[in-house]
């Protein structure tokens, strides 16, 4: 899976840190650091983090397994996530 956070948009609400603590972390009060290439086991947590971001700053690929994005998309053809 791949992800990128638009840090111009991010306002440090830290919902992603709550939902996917192994992918996102706050560095200090509001600076976000994240793993742009998280492990597959993070899929469901990452999906929740993406959905929960109040400013919709997270773009992720390989989340729903539809193969809709990316010729080289990691994690296509896997289980479709519910609750998004």
């Amino acid at each position, binding site marked *: 899976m*791949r*992800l*990128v956070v*638009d*840090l*111009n948009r*991010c*306002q*440090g609400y830290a919902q992603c840190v709550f939902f996917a603590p192994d992918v996102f*972390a706050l*560095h*200090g*009060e*509001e*600076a*976000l*650091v*994240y*793993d*742009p*290439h998280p492990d597959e086991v993070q899929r469901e947590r990452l999906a929740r983090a993406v959905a929960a971001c109040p400013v919709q700053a997270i*773009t*992720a*690929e*390989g989340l729903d397994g539809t193969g*809709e*994005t*990316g*010729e*080289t*998309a990691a994690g296509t053809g896997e289980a479709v996530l519910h609750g998004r």
Partner: protein
Amino acid sequence: MAGDDFLRWLRREGRIVIVGASLAGLRAAETLRAEGFAGSLTLIGDEPYEPYDRPPLSKAVLLGKASPHHTELPRRREIDATWRLGVAATGLDTAAKRVRLADGDEVAYDRLLIATGVRARPWPRESEARLDGVFVLRTRDDAVRFRRRLDSSPGRVFVIGAGFTGSEIASACRERGIAVTVAERADAPLVGALGGVIGAVAGELQREHGVDLRTGVMVTALEGDAAGRVRAAHLSDGTSVETDVVVVSLGATRNTEWLAGSGLGAGPRGIACDAGCRAFDFRGIVTDDIFVAGDVARSPHPLFGYQFLSLEHWGNAVTQAETAAHNMISASSERRPHIWVPAFWSAQFGVNIKSVGVPGMGEQIMITQGSRAERRFVAAYGYQGRVIAAVSFDNARWLEFYQRLIETAAPFPPDFATVDRRAEGRAPMPADFPDPSLPTHGPTVTLSGYSPADRRLVFTPSRH
């Protein structure tokens, strides 16, 4: 072909070539497909990698929280493109509409997007730049090499230049417990981008975190040992610092050399284009088939006196690419201007620094919220009686409000009360930017009037 017929043909079976396969190139390609471009699409990139994100390379990667090999950008959609990666574009024939490649190939286009970006400015003395232990940090390969060296626990890292990248590197090293010396020509870090008032805060942050910060000095020489490894840096104040790692963070150079002789208005300051992202030729006539986006572009912005802005900003690359792509396949009445309000961020020493507007235009600054001593504040910049920019330290949520002030040319100093106003924020003070006639190493925003024949920008070190 009449205009409408041509556009229909272009959208159905035209050839679009994008030179530059990084953030701007990828987002442009996605936008073209999203807007219905069904012709052939080719992306050319000099690096052998698919588009990857660079901001993590000086932050999460150095902290060991991300791999330098895995910052590839997520795709927004399928783009069905031909990728020519690992081969640089070396020339452009605008009459024949062909891009020449380093391997001798030529690629024909009907519409061209140039998004070749910038590269790290190397240490000017080549023999010293080649010493083992001397690094720059811009690309994935740079990050792999530098991270490997950091992982081997060097005795000291010496950073030349306290712009954003240099400061972020210093921050990551300190967090890893590595001794750091930072040498900066100005009187404080970040002065070129944010001015002396904010630079002073950034300098205190560095020293509090144990950085050996040397300001008002230049590095005069890098010294190597018999085996060709760097062992010391010599400074203009007569001192020298023993070090086994040197990182050269002297800003960036625009990748326009390959356009020499093409007739485009391209030079060391980038490629001039109109607000619709169409490139100017060197005569000042706008082209209609060549577009520009990202760090390499220089375009006029109505909010900032129609000055041509070069913005080496992540967000600019995304929005300018989207606008350029839209305009490439749209009739002139459907075209949009690129009027994105500049914005960027930096994380260093545990503080989230964000900016909107063009701080470099600021004559005055006012701490409108919070306090510098607490490292938590918003500062507004004023230019000719209006708000022109704002910077926040750990106060990002307010910036959107300041963006509205900038967009509406709200009066400066602000004529209303703000939350958490302190004594230090009662009155504006000079923003303290260096004299623009003495270029600094790396303001993230460079401003200039439009000149069709680009004047040469000469690097003139200031004297201290």
